[in-house]
C-alpha cells in the first residue's frame, strides 16, 4: 500500500492542492497580513478611497433630493411601481450571500479553502446589506418614520400596525437578522486576529485593539470557547443564507403576477444570490490579492474553486430560466405564456438576452481549466456576471410589471438621472466601506490560515493517516 501514502508536497498537490504557498511559516503569515494595516497609508489607497467617498457622497445628495422632493424623482410609474429601487435592493442583498456561504456553509462542509477569503467576503456581506437597506428605507419617502412602518412599535401619531401577512414585513425581520448575525459572526472571527495586531501595536492603537479583542489571551480555554461559538454561529448563519433570499423571492412569488408567481423562485433566488456574490468576491479579490501582494495566500486554487462555484450556480440559475420557460408553455395558461414571450421578445428583449448571455453563456468558459485559472479572464467574466445578475432582477421586476392584464394600462420604464446616480452612489458607499476595511482590519483570517498551514505541514511530513 506504500504507493498510496502521500510523502512529498508535490504528491499532495496532485490530490488536494496546498492552500498556503510560498514557503510560508506562522511568522511570515502574521507578517504578510499584519503589515498591510500597520505600514503607512499607500498613495494608491487614497487614489481609490477619495473617488469612492465622492461617489458615496453623491448617493447621499441624491437621497437628500429624493426626501425633499418625493419619490417622483425616480422613474417609477404606473404600472411599474417597483423598478430600479427594488432591483438594486435585491442585487445588493444577493451579493452579500457569498460571504455567508463561504463563512458558514463551507465551514460546515470542511472546505479549508474558505479560510483565505472568508474574512473579506463576510465584510462584503455587511457592506452589501448596508447598501441594500438604503432602497426600502428611502422608498418609504419619509425614512425617519420608517421605523414605525417597518417594525411593530407602538405609535400614536401614525396609528400604524404592520401587515404580518406581507412578505415585505418578513423581509424586515429576515434582513435585520441576517445583518445582525453576519456582523456577530464576522466580529467573533476577528477577535484572535485583533489580538495578534494588538500584540504588535503600541500606544493608543494597542489600547483600541486591546479593547476590540475583548481581552483575548489565546489560552486553551479561550480557543475552546471560540471554536464552539464559531460553530454555533456557523450553524445559525447557514439557514440564514437560504432564508433571506427565499423571503426576498416571496416578495414577488406570493403575488398573482405572471412572471412573479412561480414555485421555483425560492431556491432559484438563493442560487442566483450565491452566484452574484461569488462574482463580486472574485471581482474584488483578484484586485485585492494583486495590490496587497497576497498571491501566495489567495492562490490560483482558491480562485479556481470560486470559478467552479460560479459555474455550478450559473447552471442552477440556467435550470431555473429553462424550467420557467418550459412550464410557462406547459401550463397552457395564456397569461404565463404571454409574460415569458414578452420577456424574450417584447420591448425589454435586450434586458432578457443580456441576462441570458451574462448569466448562462459567459460562465460556460469555466468548463475550461485555462479560464478557471486565468485571473484576467475570470475578472472580466465576474464583471459580466455582476451585470447579468442585475439584469436578472430588472427582467423579473420591470418586464413582469410593464404589461399587466389590461393593455390600456401598459407602460414603459425609463430610469431618471436620480435612479442612475443613486445606484452608482451605492457602489461608492460599498467601495468606501471595503477600502476602510482593508486599511484597518486584517483582510485574511490569520489564525484560520495558520490552522490550514499546520495541517498541510503535518500531512506532508507524516502522511495522511498518521494524525489522531
Amino acid at each position, binding site marked *: 500500500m506504500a504507493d498510496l501514502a502521500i510523502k512529498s508536497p508535490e504528491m499532495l498537490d496532485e*490530490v488536494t492542492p496546498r492552500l498556503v504557498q510560498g514557503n510560508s511559516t506562522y511568522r511570515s503569515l502574521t507578517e504578510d497580513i499584519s503589515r498591510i494595516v500597520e505600514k503607512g497609508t499607500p498613495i494608491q489607497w487614497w487614489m481609490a478611497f477619495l473617488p469612492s467617498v465622492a461617489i458615496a457622497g453623491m448617493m447621499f445628495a441624491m437621497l437628500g433630493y429624493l426626501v425633499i422632493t418625493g419619490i417622483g424623482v425616480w422613474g417609477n410609474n404606473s404600472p411599474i411601481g417597483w423598478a430600479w429601487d427594488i432591483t438594486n435592493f435585491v442585487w445588493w442583498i444577493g451579493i452579500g450571500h457569498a460571504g455567508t456561504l463561504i463563512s458558514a456553509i463551507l465551514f460546515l462542509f470542511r472546505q479549508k479553502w474558505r479560510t483565505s477569503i472568508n474574512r473579506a467576503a463576510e465584510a462584503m456581506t455587511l457592506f452589501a446589506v448596508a447598501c441594500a437597506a438604503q432602497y426600502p428605507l428611502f422608498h418609504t419617502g419619509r425614512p425617519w418614520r420608517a421605523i414605525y412602518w417597518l417594525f411593530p412599535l407602538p405609535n400614536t401619531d401614525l396609528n400604524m400596525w404592520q401587515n404580518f401577512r406581507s412578505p415585505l414585513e418578513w423581509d424586515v425581520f429576515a434582513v435585520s437578522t441576517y445583518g445582525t448575525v453576519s456582523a456577530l459572526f464576522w466580529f467573533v472571527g476577528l477577535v484572535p486576529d485583533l489580538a495578534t495586531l494588538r500584540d504588535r501595536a503600541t500606544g493608543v492603537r494597542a489600547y483600541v485593539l486591546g479593547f476590540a479583542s475583548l481581552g483575548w489571551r489565546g489560552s486553551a480555554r479561550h480557543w475552546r470557547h471560540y471554536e464552539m461559538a464559531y460553530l454555533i454561529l456557523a450553524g445559525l448563519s447557514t439557514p440564514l443564507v437560504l432564508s433571506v433570499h427565499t423571503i426576498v423571492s*416571496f416578495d414577488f412569488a406570493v*403575488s398573482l403576477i405572471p412572471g412573479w408567481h412561480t414555485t*421555483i423562485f425560492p*431556491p432559484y433566488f438563493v442560487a442566483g444570490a450565491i452566484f452574484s456574490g461569488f462574482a463580486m468576491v472574485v471581482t474584488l479579490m483578484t484586485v485585492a490579492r494583486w495590490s496587497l501582494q497576497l498571491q501566495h495566500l489567495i492562490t490560483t486554487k482558491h480562485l479556481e474553486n470560486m470559478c467552479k462555484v460560479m459555474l455550478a450556480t450559473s447552471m442552477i440559475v440556467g435550470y431555473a430560466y429553462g424550467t420557467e420557460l418550459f*412550464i410557462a408553455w406547459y401550463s397552457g395558461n395564456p397569461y404565463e405564456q404571454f409574460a415569458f414571450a414578452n420577456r424574450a421578445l417584447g420591448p425589454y428583449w435586450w434586458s432578457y438576452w443580456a441576462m441570458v448571455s451574462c448569466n448562462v453563456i459567459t460562465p460556460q468558459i469555466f468548463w475550461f481549466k485555462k479560464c478557471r485559472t486565468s485571473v484576467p479572464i475570470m475578472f472580466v467574466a465576474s464583471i459580466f456576471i455582476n451585470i447579468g445578475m442585475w439584469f436578472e432582477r430588472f427582467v423579473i421586476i420591470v418586464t413582469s410589471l410593464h404589461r399587466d392584464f389590461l393593455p390600456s394600462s401598459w407602460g414603459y420604464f425609463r430610469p431618471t438621472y436620480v435612479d442612475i446616480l443613486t445606484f452608482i452612489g451605492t457602489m461608492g458607499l460599498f467601495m468606501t466601506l471595503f477600502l476602510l476595511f482593508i486599511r484597518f482590519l486584517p483582510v485574511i483570517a490569520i489564525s484560520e490560515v495558520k490552522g490550514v498551514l499546520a495541517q498541510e505541514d503535518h500531512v506532508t511530513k507524516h502522511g495522511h*493517516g498518521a494524525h489522531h
Partner: protein
Amino acid sequence: MIEYATIEHTRESWRLDEAVWTRVRNVIAFLMLLGWAGCAAGFFQDSERFFRSYLVGFLDVTLIALGCLFFVMVMYLTGSAWSVTVRRIFETIMVTIPLAAVLVLPILGGIHHLYEWSHSEHVAHDKILLGKAGWLNPEAFVIRAFVYVLIWSVMAIRIYTNSTAQDKTKSVKHMDSTSAWSAPGLLLVFLSVSTAAFDWIMSLNPHWYSTIFGIYVYAGGGLACIATVTVICLWLRRHGILAQSIHLEHYHDLGKWMFALTVFWAYIAFSQYMLIWYANLAEETVFYTKRLVGSWKFVSGLLLFGHFIVPFFFLIQRRVKRNLGALLAAALWILVICYIDLYWMVMPNFDKEGVRPHWLDAVAWLAVASTYAFAFWWQLKKHSLVPEGDARLEQSLAHVNI
C-alpha cells in the same frame, strides 16, 4: 470507543464472505419471486390498481438509485474525503440503474391506465391538453423514458468502471476522469430527473404544474438514498463487515446528511405549498385540495410531522447521530416516510375519496426493490467493498468529527 483503522487493519473485511453472500442472495431471490408472482396475480385481479401501485414502488426505489448517482458525482466534484469508505456502497446502488430500462416497461405498458392525456379522444375535447400534446403524447413519453435511463446508465456505468479500475491501478487518473464526467453528468442527470418527475408524476394530473416539482421529487430521492446507505452499512456492520472501515464518524456524517436533506426537503415542500396557498389560484391549488379530502388529510399531516418536524428534532441531536441504534431507527423511518410521500403524490389522483391501501402496494414495491437489491448484491461481490485505490482512503479511515 471506536477503533481508528489503518489500511492493514481492515484488509480482511473488504470482501464479502461467500456463505453470507449466498444466504442473502437466496433470500433476495425468494422475495423477488414472491414479489413478481404477486404482481402477476395482482395484474390479473385488478390491473388498474397494479399499475398505480407499481408506479409508486418503481419511483421509490429508482429515486434511491438516482440519489446515489447524484451523491457520487458530488463526492468526486468536491474531492470529498470522509465519504471514501462508504462510497462503494453508493456506487453499487447507483450502478443498478440500467435495470430501470426494464423495470419502467410496466409503466409504459400501463400508460393508458395511468395517464389521462394518453387518450387522444379525451385530449381532443380539452383545449389545455391539446396545447401540451407536443410534450404529453405516448410516443414522446416512451422515447423520453428511454433517453432518461440511457443518460443515467451511461453516467453510472462510466463512474463505476472508473472507480473499480482504480482499485487495482491505484492511479489518480481514474479519479480525475470521473470528476471530468461528473460535472456535465450532474447537469444532465438533474435535468433528466426533473423532466422524469414532470412526466411520471406531475402529468398524472396533466392540468397541474409547478416549476419546483422536479427539485421536490429529487430532494426526497436524495434523502432516501442516504437512509438506504445507512441501513445497508449498519446491516453489514452487524455481520462484522466493514465494521472498522465505516466507523462512528462516518455514521455521524451520514446522520448529518439525513438531517440536512430532511431540512432541504421541508424547505422545498414549504416553498411549493406556501406559494400555492398564498396565491390561491384554482389551477394550482387543485393539487393540495385533492390531498386534503377524507383520510388524505391525515397523510398530508403525517408528512408535515413525519417527514419534517419529528426527524428534525430527532436528528438535530449529536447523540442521536452518534448512536447507531437511534440512527438505524431514523433511517428506517425516513425510508417509510419517503415512500409515503410518493404514495401521496401519486394515489390521490385515483383514490379521490381517501386513502385506500391495497396489498398490491406492498407487493409491487417488493418486486421492484428486490430486483434492484438482487443486482446490487450481485455486483457488490465482484469488487472490493471499499474503493481501495482511492488516494483519499487513508484520510477517510482516519476521519474524525471535531
